[in-house]
């Protein structure tokens, strides 16, 4: 897969604060890329620089073959951005909002109506077109925000915490749309999120801490490198679990035993067949990866 975003040695400071320090990473075309970090880690600064809203101090950014230093207009056409907070006009109708934003890309008249029809079908908001944007629910607003970001058919969709505060049904709808765009339109999705279960769906993850890359890899690679496995054991006596000399946690009806790897778990089970009659092995979660890499939990960072 070819690279669609290449960031090399990016630096940005605000006075004495180094928001981004020597940041380098690559995003492959068509992948779902998760960019993680607590608030203040440098995620939004990086996104703002990519979207030409902030000037970088140094470094290089190439998006879909276009160098940011050699002109931002082409890059702006390739990016669709869903901001953390909705920035559409509350007083206008959904139709008027999307019409004015489409015009920014030169999409007017019949071309706009055709695109609006496609998006309202994809995001299921045909019935909201005449409604005032400010009077929509959070989930409905989010759908329109995504439609705005997609109005000019960008190659890269940047989603800055798109599902924060949404109900499960709307979150599911949004994720269905993300999968649809990724699978059927080969769109690259650049995601920041505080939900680790969402990050674990990504093809590639970069964890940012204090403006620097702390870890990167696929969710599987990160889990393998930064967390161990768990054996959840049912119907066992605590003395037998203690005899394994491994750290464990007692829950209501089971014991959660920590092991360093799946191989170690397998060895222990094979050595103690009488004890392990009802059990399951699970890999560490992305939350554990994040905690292990940064020493912080995402909720703690907020």
């Amino acid at each position, binding site marked *: 897969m070819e690279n669609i975003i290449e960031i090399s040695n990016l630096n940005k400071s605000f006075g004495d604060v180094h928001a981004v320090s020597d940041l380098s990473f690559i995003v492959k075309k068509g992948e779902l890329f998760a960019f993680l970090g607590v608030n203040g880690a440098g995620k939004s600064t990086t996104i703002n620089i990519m979207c030409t809203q902030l*000037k970088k101090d140094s470094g290089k950014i190439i998006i879909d073959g276009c160098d940011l230093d050699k002109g931002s207009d082409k890059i702006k056409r390739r*990016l669709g*951005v869903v901001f953390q907070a909705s920035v559409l006009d509350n007083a*206008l109708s959904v139709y*008027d909002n999307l*019409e*004015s*934003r489409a015009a*920014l890309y030169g999409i007017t008249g019949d071309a706009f109506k055709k695109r609006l029809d496609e998006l309202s079908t994809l995001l299921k908001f045909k019935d909201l077109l005449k409604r005032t944007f400010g009077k929509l629910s959070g989930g409905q607003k989010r759908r329109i925000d995504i439609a705005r970001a997609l109005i000019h058919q960008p190659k890269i969709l940047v989603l800055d915490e798109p599902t924060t505060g949404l109900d499960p049904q709307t979150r599911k709808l949004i994720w269905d749309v993300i999968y649809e765009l990724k699978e059927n339109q080969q769109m690259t999705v650049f995601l920041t999120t505080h939900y680790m279960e969402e990050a674990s769906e990504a093809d590639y993850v970069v964890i940012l801490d204090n403006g620097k890359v702390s870890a990167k890899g696929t969710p599987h690679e990160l889990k393998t490198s930064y967390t161990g496995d768990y054996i959840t054991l049912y119907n066992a006596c605590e003395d037998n679990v203690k005899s394994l000399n491994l750290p464990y946690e007692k829950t209501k009806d089971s014991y959660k035993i920590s092991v360093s790897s799946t191989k170690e778990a397998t060895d222990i089970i094979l050595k103690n067949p009488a004890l392990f009659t009802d059990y399951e092995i699970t890999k560490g979660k992305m939350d554990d990866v994040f905690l292990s890499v940064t020493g912080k939990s995402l909720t703690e960072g907020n």
Partner: protein
Amino acid sequence: MNILFTLTKRNVKLFFKDKGMFFTSLVTPAILLVLYVTFLGNLYRDTFLSQIPASFQISDKIINGLVGGQLVSSILAVSCITVAFCSNFLMVQDKANGTAKDLTISPVKSHILSLSYYIATLISTILICASALIICLIYLTFAGWYLTFSHVILLFVDVFLLSFLGTAISSVINFFLSTQGQISAVGTIISAGYGFICGAYMPIYSFGDGLQKVVSLLPGTYGTSLLRNHAMQGVFSEMVNVGIPTDAVEQMKNSVDCNVFFFGNKVEISSMYIFISVTVIALVGIYIMLNALKSKKASK
């Protein structure tokens, strides 16, 4: 052109849908009219009467026409600027609530965006101030009507030109604002202060020499004077017709700034139009240049 049209349409719709902004702009001229009639009407009346030689009798209709002309011209001179500021605050609100970011992540040229705000503000200001002028004309029909058809047309031209000026001034000043607090502060300063420096609340003629010279450098002075001339010319002509000495009438014209002087030289009406037009062109140029520089700086 389609992009500019759609963005302008968005800005105009937002202004008229924001009930706070629209209502404030609309009622400001009406409130000013009521306040002027209530508090300044008698003062203006007494001032005029004191300037007419004691040997002359003058009808109430003429005096009411004079007072009405001065009130109307003052209201319009202030409204064209304050309404423009009020309407143009959309530009600042877009920055304050993050909408500007959503607009500038697109490849739209900065001069298109800035022009869309300018044109939208101009349309809103003209609509509101032209409505205010119609209300003022209705008031004059009751107070004392001495306007000719050409005076009425010229009053509309003056309102259009001052709306261009108000929009241009507000565009340049609002460019530097980015928060709701700044909007409130500037709004208050303009509402309270502009009427004084343009001669709407107190005639420039009554200022000291130094201050008169300073305000003669400002385009608002000539805007007020144009409105005064076109709102009061008819009644001055009537005064000459009924036998008031020309000298007394000229003195009265000086006292209400129908005649204004630039370092001792009387400024002709045509020069006032030219001065205001050139100022508008210069301010619009500065506004577009500021936006272009900002955009260039951001993309580096």
